[in-house]
């Protein structure tokens, strides 16, 4: 016999007004949970909420000192400092959001065992406090950039909204996936820490895409092998045939190119700060080919890849979460 829980007995009609009421109630619950989590996060600390603003600033200071002060790295892009800051702020959001949302389910065992509501509310509520901090940090970056005259404001600033939405969706998709698995496998937490470390270097936080293309010999290496006749399905479409040394790191390039975090950070820099080095535009216009004289990263095929990755991750995350949410109350 199938197991079902109906909301109404036969003959009952579920009015759309009732559904609207339910929606309103859950929106309210999400907000209340987010507000109390926000308050709880900063109790028992002297500086309180200030920490969330202080942390990216301190990371920025360290990174800037090491890369610019110590290694004298210049990536040739405009306003390297402010670009770095924007990258760090964006990355901090992503890292904090996934990190705290991962424990949203396991950390609310009491609530889940005793009250009914859609479990995804807990994950979304947990992400909201990171999102709020991120928006404040973005405003601060903007103000600093204006103050230092390191910004070229243009109409492209409107793209900030869809880009933030994309990044938030990505973070939610990953959070749903992680939080659902974290209930039974706490190993996920350690694994994600390691993966985040890898992602940090693969997301262009400390350097722009232009820099990668100019400096990365791995890219130079790609084209030649392809020209030499190797039929790598993805690679063949990605890179036109030219004469360069054999590739050893083709997979790394492709991964970086498929990384939506890299794409959002790069496009945010473009939309907010400088017309230079936008990921999406480079792909569309074939501008990448000009930047890199050896390989042609100008195939429009690449354009939708980061967006498709986001859609894929959100779908997998939501489905995993839905399947596992049925037994959260029992598993916890």
């Amino acid at each position, binding site marked *: *016999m*199938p*197991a*079902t*829980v*109906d*909301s*109404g*007995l*036969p*003959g*009952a009609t579920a009015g759309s007004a009732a559904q609207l009421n339910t929606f*309103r*109630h859950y929106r*309210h*619950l999400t*907000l*209340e*949970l987010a*507000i*109390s989590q926000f*308050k*709880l996060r900063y*109790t*028992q600390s002297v500086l309180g909420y200030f920490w969330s603003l202080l942390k990216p600033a301190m990371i920025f200071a360290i990174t800037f000192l090491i890369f610019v002060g110590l290694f004298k790295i210049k990536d040739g892009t405009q306003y390297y400092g402010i670009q770095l800051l924007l990258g760090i702020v964006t990355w901090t959001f992503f890292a904090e959001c996934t990190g705290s949302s991962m424990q949203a389910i396991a950390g609310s065992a*009491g*609530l*889940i*065992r*005793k*009250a*009914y*509501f859609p479990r995804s509310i807990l994950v979304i509520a947990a992400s909201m406090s990171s999102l709020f901090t991120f928006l404040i940090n973005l405003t601060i970056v903007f103000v600093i950039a204006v103050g230092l005259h390191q910004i070229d404001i243009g109409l492209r600033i409107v793209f900030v909204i869809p880009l933030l939405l994309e990044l938030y969706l990505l973070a939610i998709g990953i959070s749903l996936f992680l939080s659902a698995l974290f209930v039974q496998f706490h190993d996920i937490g350690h694994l994600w820490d390691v993966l985040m470390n890898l992602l940090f270097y693969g997301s262009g936080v400390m350097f722009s895409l232009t820099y990668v293309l100019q400096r990365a010999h791995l890219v130079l290496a790609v084209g030649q092998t392809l020209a030499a006749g190797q039929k790598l399905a993805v690679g063949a479409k990605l890179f036109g045939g030219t004469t360069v040394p054999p590739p050893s790191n083709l997979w790394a390039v492709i991964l970086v190119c498929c990384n939506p975090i890299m794409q959002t950070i790069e496009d945010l820099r473009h939309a907010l700060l400088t017309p230079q080095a936008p990921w999406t535009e480079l792909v569309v216009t074939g501008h990448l080919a000009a930047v890199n004289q050896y390989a042609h990263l100008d195939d429009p095929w690449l354009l939708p890849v980061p967006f498709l990755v986001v859609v894929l991750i959100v779908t997998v995350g939501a489905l995993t979460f839905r399947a596992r949410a*049925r*037994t959260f*109350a*029992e598993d916890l």
Partner: protein
Amino acid sequence: MTATDRALAIKVENLSKRFRIPLDRSSTLKHRLTHWRSASRYRTLEALRDVSFEVPAGEFTGIIGHNGSGKSTLLKILARIYRPDAGRVAIEGKVSPFLELGVGFNPELTARENIFLSGAILGLGRVELHRLFEEIIGFAELEQFVDHKLKNFSSGMEVRLAFSLAIQAHAEILMMDEVLAVGDASFQQKCFDVFKGYKREGRTVVLVTHELSAVNQYCDRALLLDHGRLVADGLATEVTAQYRRAIGLAADGSRLSDEVERWGSRDVVLTGARMLDERGVEDCNPPTGGFTRVELGYQIQNDSVADFVCVIWLVRDDGQVLAEARLPVSQYAQVGSSQRGASGTIRYDIPEIPLLDGGYSVNIELQGRRDGATYDHLNHAVRFHVVDKGGRGGLIDPGGVWSVVPTEQPVVGWPDQFAATQQ
């Protein structure tokens, strides 16, 4: 559709729920690494078996049964917290989404913040909460503590806050799990007053409780669960009476008066008996091969008692005695040299219970060491149900360990008594 059909609030058909409980409860990393192969071993606990019933709108229903009978599981399925494995649940009307008082309370938040957080879980809107705020605080008598953190509240204050908030939830069907077990006498009185109000308003209430008197007082009818099965469904007074008979409770609540199941001179009396798992938690559903402790209390009623012995029988539900265990001589002194009024606890640990799936009980007797006189004998002192993960036949699980050793040639011959026939 008839008129009575339409008045139904809850309709449950053939509901079943199983839990898979990992046999290996240890969670240290080292243990998990060394025992990773056994991590997938589970025992199945049938929490609910084919339960069907209906609750008409506006009725008070009590769910009673022993610990582990499936009461709370049933309530959690009705509240949509658990999903059933089989069967159908239909509910008409808005169900309270919570089971206990103070759901979502956080000790680090103030009373005010907790009201808004917990209120949201209860389904109250922000505007509504603002409007009701003074009333909630007033009812809880906490006007001076509105902005104090909950962790600084006494448990009585916390319960008052939780209760005055909970009664504002405007669900048509209320589910309550042991709400009567908390608070002092005056708080319980408040509870009952609110219940009377619910009754007048014609709300449907499903109540899980151990307080049989409360069931008699407030519930129109009661459901009795036993090992996941619905064994009685009827008038509250009749069902509670049946439950009392089953567990040997007298109508006045005093335990064990059934002469047929209990006899003896009562020079030493049994004060209680229970079954515990390895963590010391009461558990009447041990798994095959699991650790089980039978624990019983005694009290000496007569100075003339010198030494006494404790005997425990494990009995299958069909009456077959499976084992008899007697307190060894070496332990006599510990119970023997006591005065009238002295009491103590006797434990009988079974490291790996070999019994297979089925219903059993423990019979206990305290008897004089010298004359063998029966001081107190009690049949079915503890009823328990062994849960087997299946795949075994026969009467017991001897707990044998298998291994396979490949060899070049066959090295195992026959025992000597077969030597002649084989050659």
